[in-house]
């Protein structure tokens, strides 16, 4: 986050890509896209293109890592070398390791972990193209992949960032807004439980601005939640059609 002279909001109050401050980018979600995974989902949000897959529940190796009273959730967030402007080494960066952890902790509250003791679930996220807000889009997709895998869940997790660019609180920052805007607040929500499962912030916000940003992000999460449910419905219809 660093403030530069570039204008991110024009005179009409519109953003670089023509969106209004409280508008989401175009989102496309598909569930059940990979034949090998136990569950999978694909999301496009702006130019973000992200795949999430679930393998499990399965046995834990080595065995002494298994937990007697709950399932272990593991998560790997990973970016393709060609997903960003300068080629990224395929070895996990410190950023990817941190994001793997916060994404896992954003999904954990949604899962009935105690249903499958001594097992593990793997969440694999691959960012094929990155355009700002990949952690949120990853959570949105991974939560659908978990549902597709039939993992018992308390609710879906929907995620979306809000932030501040040019003194305006805006929803769903794209790459340029993320990089030269004043603040970014990614949030993940289980809408039915009003439970925030991911919250980070960088940049600078007053308490009042922070409250506005959180509320706008929560609104975004709820809109995305509706799209998640649509995508799941489409998947079931598809499956049914194939089976018939």
């Amino acid at each position, binding site marked *: 986050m660093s403030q530069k002279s570039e204008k991110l909001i024009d005179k009409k109050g519109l953003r670089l890509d023509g969106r209004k401050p409280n508008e989401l980018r175009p989102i496309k979600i598909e569930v059940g896209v990979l034949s*090998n995974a136990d569950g999978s989902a694909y999301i496009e949000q702006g130019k973000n293109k992200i795949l999430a897959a679930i393998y499990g529940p399965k046995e834990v190796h080595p065995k002494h890592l298994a937990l007697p009273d709950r399932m272990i959730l593991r998560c790997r967030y*990973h970016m*393709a070398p*060609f997903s960003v402007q300068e080629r990224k080494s395929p*070895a996990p960066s410190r950023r990817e390791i941190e994001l793997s952890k916060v994404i896992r902790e954003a999904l954990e509250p949604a899962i009935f972990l105690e249903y499958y003791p001594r097992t593990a679930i793997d969440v*694999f996220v691959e960012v094929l193209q990155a355009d700002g807000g990949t952690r949120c889009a990853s959570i949105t997709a991974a939560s659908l992949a978990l549902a597709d895998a039939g993992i018992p869940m308390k609710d879906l997790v929907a995620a979306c960032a809000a932030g501040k660019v040019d003194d305006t609180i805006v929803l769903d920052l794209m790459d340029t807004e993320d990089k030269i805007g004043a603040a970014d607040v990614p949030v993940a929500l289980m809408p039915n439980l009003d439970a925030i499962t991911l919250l980070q912030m960088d940049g600078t916000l007053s308490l009042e601005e922070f409250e506005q940003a959180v509320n706008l992000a929560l609104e975004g999460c709820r809109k995305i939640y509706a799209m998640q449910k649509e995508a799941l419905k489409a998947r079931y219809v598809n499956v049914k059609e194939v089976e018939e």
Partner: protein
Amino acid sequence: MSSMITRVKQKQIAQLIAKGKRLDGRALTEYREIKVEQGIIERAEGSARVLLGKTEVMVGTKIEIGQPFSDTPNEGVLTVNAELVPLASPTFEPGPPDENSIELARVVDRGIRESKAIEFDKLCIEPGKKVFVVFVDVYVLNHDGNLIDASALAALAALLNTKMPNYEIEDGEVKIKSGYTPLPIKKHPITVTFAKINDKLVVDPWLEEEQVMEARISIATEDDGNICAIQKGGSGYFTPKQVLEAAKIAKEKAQEIRKKLNW
């Protein structure tokens, strides 16, 4: 699938092949459906996605300015990397590249390099000092068998879709200008892989066939039918006759694929 059902199915696959048939209904030298999409990753200098049946491979290319190798000071550099990312198969694990992904990358590299598909001399900016480096990143997204052919095809499709930045040299410094030039590609090497099952050769094995195959052979040929790369794999063997037969079929199938794709 339980291992008993697996074994019954494997037996069935092998028995069918002995009769010249395959479980999915294909002829022994028939490919699964091939779909190629190019230009799907805007961030990359080039990209393609190939579906070979349910096998899905994405390739992105990146172009950077770097140093040439000391023995080829006037040529650009090619670097091929393959990732068997764990979402593609329950048998892939996170971590540094294992022998399978390294072999895959090197076989894809060999086909492109040995056929001289890229005009490397046109990638030289300043002899001995600055050249374009082409990164080809093979990303396997779903593994249903025959990763080699799908990856080689996706790599070629991505290279054909790759654009190099325009530049000029000002006061000895390279300045990137607006606009792009297509990466100069003059050959279209196509790799055709055979599995040996019950002493017969089948083309484009899918996953269940790979699980019963005794050995594998991959043969890349150029537009003019010359062979430019071969790799035998697996813990079985081929007779000299089988090897020569495979080479002939590989040449034909590659021509078919080139024709279908208008390359």
